[in-house]
């Protein structure tokens, strides 16, 4: 199986604080890889290094075969990134946001228009093209943000806590969108701190204080550790570390 994301001994320190502490993992093409951990565990920092927003302190990594160290510009053409804040321009309309993201990703006008139709359909925003984005509710903003992040049909999508602050029904809808993307061959790298979302992932890594404390498919982790749910496993692991 070809690897979409490969990370070896990645470290990031901010002064004396170690945010990401020597992690190694890989993500297969077309799988949903969940990065699970409490706030401040190092999830966002890892994503930012993989996307080329932050430089790593040491270690190596590749995304779609491109090195995160010196090929971050090439990486940017094959990835989509959705940050925790649903980075949309609140003072632009739905349509203007889509046009803008299409434009800066180098899509032609015709391509942007085609993708716009798809995004409006996917996000359930048809008829709301002229609405100001800032006035949309959480679920809509979230789906529009996803649409803008994948407008250029990237090979890998990084989603940083995409379901934070969104109602349960919207969360469920969102995960079925993610599943659809993965089924069509897109690699999904997603972080969350909701344990119930873990079951939607093909494979997960549990991260705590910058270290990976467990990794595998949800079923593997449950049988190997003889627990009925992964929340119990995670709590036990953290307790044993304290």
């Amino acid at each position, binding site marked *: 199986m070809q690897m979409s994301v490969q990370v070896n001994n990645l470290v990031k320190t901010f002064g004396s604080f170690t945010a990401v502490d020597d992690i190694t993992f890989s993500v297969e093409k077309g799988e949903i890889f969940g990065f699970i951990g409490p706030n401040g565990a190092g999830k966002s920092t890892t994503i*930012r290094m993989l*996307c*080329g*927003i932050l*430089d790593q302190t040491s270690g190596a990594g590749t995304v779609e075969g491109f090195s995160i160290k010196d090929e*971050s*510009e090439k990486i*940017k*053409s094959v*990835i*989509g*990134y959705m*940050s*925790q*804040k649903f*980075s*949309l*321009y*609140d*003072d*632009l309309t739905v349509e*203007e946001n889509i*046009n*803008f*993201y*299409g*434009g*800066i*990703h*180098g899509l*032609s006008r015709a391509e942007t228009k085609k993708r716009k139709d798809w995004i409006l359909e996917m996000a359930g925003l048809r008829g709301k093209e002229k609405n100001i984005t800032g006035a949309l509710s959480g679920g809509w903003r979230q789906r529009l943000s996803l649409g*803008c*992040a994948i407008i250029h049909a990237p090979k890998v999508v990084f989603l940083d806590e995409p379901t934070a602050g969104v109602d349960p029904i919207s969360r469920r809808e969102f995960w079925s969108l993610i599943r659809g993307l993965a089924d069509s061959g897109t690699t999904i790298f997603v972080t969350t701190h909701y344990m119930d979302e873990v079951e939607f992932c093909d494979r997960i890594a549990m991260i705590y204080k910058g270290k990976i404390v467990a990794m595998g498919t949800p079923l593997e982790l449950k049988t190997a550790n003889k627990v009925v749910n992964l929340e119990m496993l995670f709590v036990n692991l953290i307790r044993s570390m304290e």
Partner: protein
Amino acid sequence: MRRIIELVRKEFIQTLRDKRMIGLIFVAPLLQLIMLGYAVTTDVKHIALCVWDNDRSRESRELVSKAVVSGYFDDSGTVGSDEEMERAFKSGRSDLVIYFPPEYSKRIKRGEKAKVELIADGSDSNLTNIAFGYMGQIINLENNKLQIENVARLKAAKGAEIKVPLIELKPRVLYNPEMKSANYMIPGEIGLILTLITILLTSMSITKEKESGTIEQLIVSPLRSSEVIIGKTIPFAVIGMLIVLFIITGGIFVFNITLKGNIFTLFFASFLFLLNTLGIGLFISTISKTQQQAMLSSIIFILPSIMISGFAFPVSNMPIEIQWLSYLLPLRYFFIIIRGIFLKGAGFAILWPEMLALFLLGTTVFILAALRFRKKLS
């Protein structure tokens, strides 16, 4: 190219949709134009003059009435003692007191030296200097008149030819003959407004993206940092040029200022100047995390640079160290250029050193800011 166009389009939509920005862009220049054109004036007229006349003669009244007729002085009543004079100064009734001693007129008639005393408030040193100057001129004219009368009388009495040498002063002001301060202030306003608006808009539009997190989306997009910089500065350069046009039009049609030089030279110089302000705005955005920080840093830079670049106070009067510092301020050169073009009709042949300075400063600042910006992006 399409990526830059999209960025520019987005920037325009955002700027024009924000009511605060509209206010900043269109109302601020208008208010400044009105203030600098009408209200803020260094022309001194209507100096409050009180008379302390211990002579009460035709001669003393004549001198006072000449001062009032000149238009520079307003008759603000009389005082009769030291206490009264002090009260007049303290209450603001009087800027200047003219004191005629007893025997003033008798001494003139006897052909002796008569004395007049001028007592000034002095807390506004500029006004005091000008008041002394005007009154000095009026008294000089009076002296000439007395001399000529004297000579005429002597001539009539002795029937002889008597020559009295007189030097007559004929001042001629070349480039602002009416000495109207609006002629000087309104071209200066172009520099003032361009500095304020382009630095603020540029630095705030980038820090706004930092606050909302959208900057991360720009970073992970295939946009190059040079494209972000160009896309972020073009809209404000265009807005800046529109403001220049607006002020020129207002100055010419509302305040009757004549643009003696070439309007394209003016636009070219404004463009060179914008290179500086946009670069500074960009630089400020790389050292600020929030819009508030960006705004404060901008003001901290803008205020002193207006003070010491010769907008209202001549640079040549400043301590030498401050003059050196002012060589680093683009506004200093720009004030010389726009006033040169507006009032004197100067062109490239004369103003090229200042234009070169603007170009060098501007490219340096812009490149420094762009380098810092690149670092922040990666």
